């Protein structure tokens, strides 16, 4: 039963420009409706186009779980693609634990798996390609220090208990400002919760208590960023009176940045994540060695640099260019 794998390996050896067998690569996101996943899809499609234009015949299968965020449904997708004998699977696991067994089975059956976005508690996958969230938080912290000239009172509005990616961002931020004794952390124990509404309430409560002392605020993802900017406007402290840094871009937070209510946004690169996911898999299939951990990078977008083309592409990914929609 190893013959397909052997076949791929063999043809990989023979592969020059012309490649007889087509690579079929499944890309499995956590869901399909959010903008973040659309960007990943665009990146994967971009890689597909590039590979094909280089003469490496590639076809991607973009397929989310039938019910958004349902672990069992995502397992089914992985299993079905395994028996479809895909050349490779690029997976954003909904859970670091529940997807371990199906990934193991896939690798056993000769289908290599590459993990993007969120990590998997396993050593079976080829590589893990994602944002370094800690680094993103750390960058935000350093920018905050710069904005405040090295001294002032700072608030961290946390996102949610148990969310690993935002906790890493929060820790990065705290570690960066810790190095500056004149920066005082006046609140870091409040959580915004998952929705705009809960974030708005938490922001109002925090500002009610500390609104007169605060000089800078950091929020670790999109919903609290938008909510906090709104709460700052309510009390007339927006527009740079209180320096504010957010994480992730969305249409609302980009507008806030443009209007000067946000001083900076730390932005991930989901297009690159999807792109590198497929590209790295293709490299592996061609017999090249791939890195175990690939960082897709974070970028600090400010009002000054947001009009530059590469920044524009980051905060407003060119989905239409790659997806036929």
């Amino acid at each position: 039963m190893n013959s397909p794998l052997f076949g791929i390996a063999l043809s990989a050896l023979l592969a020059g420009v012309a490649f007889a067998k087509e690579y079929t690569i499944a890309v499995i996101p956590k869901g399909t409706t959010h903008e973040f996943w659309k960007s990943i899809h665009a990146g994967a499609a971009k890689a597909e186009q590039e590979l094909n234009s280089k003469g490496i015949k590639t076809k991607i299968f973009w397929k989310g779980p039938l019910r958004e965020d349902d672990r069992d449904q995502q397992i089914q997708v992985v299993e079905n693609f395994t028996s479809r004998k895909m050349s490779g699977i690029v997976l954003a696991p909904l859970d670091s634990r529940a997807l371990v067994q199906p990934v193991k089975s896939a690798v056993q059956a000769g289908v290599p798996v590459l993990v993007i976005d969120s990590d998997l508690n396993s050593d079976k996958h080829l590589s893990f390609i994602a944002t370094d969230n800690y680094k993103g938080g750390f960058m935000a912290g350093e920018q905050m220090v710069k904005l405040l000239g090295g001294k002032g009172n700072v608030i961290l509005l946390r996102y949610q208990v148990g969310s690993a990616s935002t906790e890493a961002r929060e820790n990065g931020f705290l570690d960066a400002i810790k190095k500056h004794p004149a920066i005082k952390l006046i609140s870091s124990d409040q959580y915004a919760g998952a929705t705009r509404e809960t974030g708005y309430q938490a922001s109002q409560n925090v500002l009610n208590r500390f609104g007169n002392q605060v000089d800078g605020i950091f929020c670790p993802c999109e919903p609290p960023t938008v909510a906090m900017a709104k709460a700052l406007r309510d009390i007339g402290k927006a527009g740079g009176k209180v320096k504010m840094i957010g994480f992730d871009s969305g249409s609302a937070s980009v507008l806030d940045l443009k209007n000067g209510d946000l001083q900076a946004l730390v932005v991930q690169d989901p297009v690159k994540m999807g792109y590198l996911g497929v590209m790295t898999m293709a490299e592996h299939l061609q017999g090249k060695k791939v890195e175990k951990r690939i960082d897709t990078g974070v970028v600090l977008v400010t009002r000054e640099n947001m009009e530059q083309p590469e920044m524009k592409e980051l905060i407003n990914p060119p989905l239409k260019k790659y997806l036929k929609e």
Partner: protein
Amino acid sequence: MSVVRNGTAGSETTARARRFLNAAGPFLGLLLVLLLLSLNSESREFIFTGANFKIVLIQTVIVGIGALGMTLIIVSGGIDLSVGSVVAFTSVLGARLLVADVNPALAVAGVILAGGAIGLINGAVIAGLRMMPFIVTLGMMGIIRGAAKWLSNKQTVSAPENSPVNAIMARLNPTEFLPLPAGVWIAVGLGIVMAFMMNRTVFGRHIFAIGSNEATARLCGIRVPLTKLWIYGLAGLFFGLSGLMQLSRLTQGDPSVAIGLELDIIAAVVIGGASLSGGTGSILGAMIGALIMAILRNGTNQMGWETYVQEIIIGGVIVLAVGLDKLRQSRSARV
């Protein structure tokens, strides 16, 4: 098996032929689906392999075992909307028991019995207070979902890594059809037992009688409330077992899993020839119904169709299956 009652002068042979057709209906559906999938030459070689059918069978287990319980309920003229919640709750319960180092055999028993207990509560309220099953189980759906979140402290509970429960649904040797995991054999075995029970035991015939006409059943001396209590309790045991399979598959108890699962299960039972107005339905048909849906999902998946196409197709199949069934019934009524 769905039963056609036409005691009129209609010849015995046509009645028998029709009965055969009714029983064979789900099989014909299954064949049709397989035929459709075989049309695509690109994915044919992947779909029709032992390894792939192993996957399909494993993916059918949770819905299939749930359908065993749901068939009892639907044949009796009832419905249970709380199944998805029960599966989530029992999977969390099982994970917590295993984490607390309870003997795995006891944990398994506890999970199944918890499902049965919830079923008994449903049955007691429905039979005792004469309330609509739809409303009672709709309420239970919310209660048990909430209880699952409470029991799990609002997050997934991972079962111990080497727990024997994890092996029930584990897919060993993914390139061959055999060995099938224990979960598949359990589902098949229980299916045979239940098919026998429905057709050959007094309890089974009472279920059909209640579903056909509750008042007549009562007049015939069937203790309707007590029978209903047992129906929902027994079905609950199966839902608990589905929860155990879910736990084994995810290797964790997840309070947010299986949302809407009851609708998949109801669809399987209905595709298998049951009527939501009660009195007809078959265990074998329901299992085939579950299989049809899993194959559709698996096949459309492998052909690389979009998720929404899949949803539309599965929805269409449900309506088509029930429509055909209605057509058959109206013909037999006219004879």
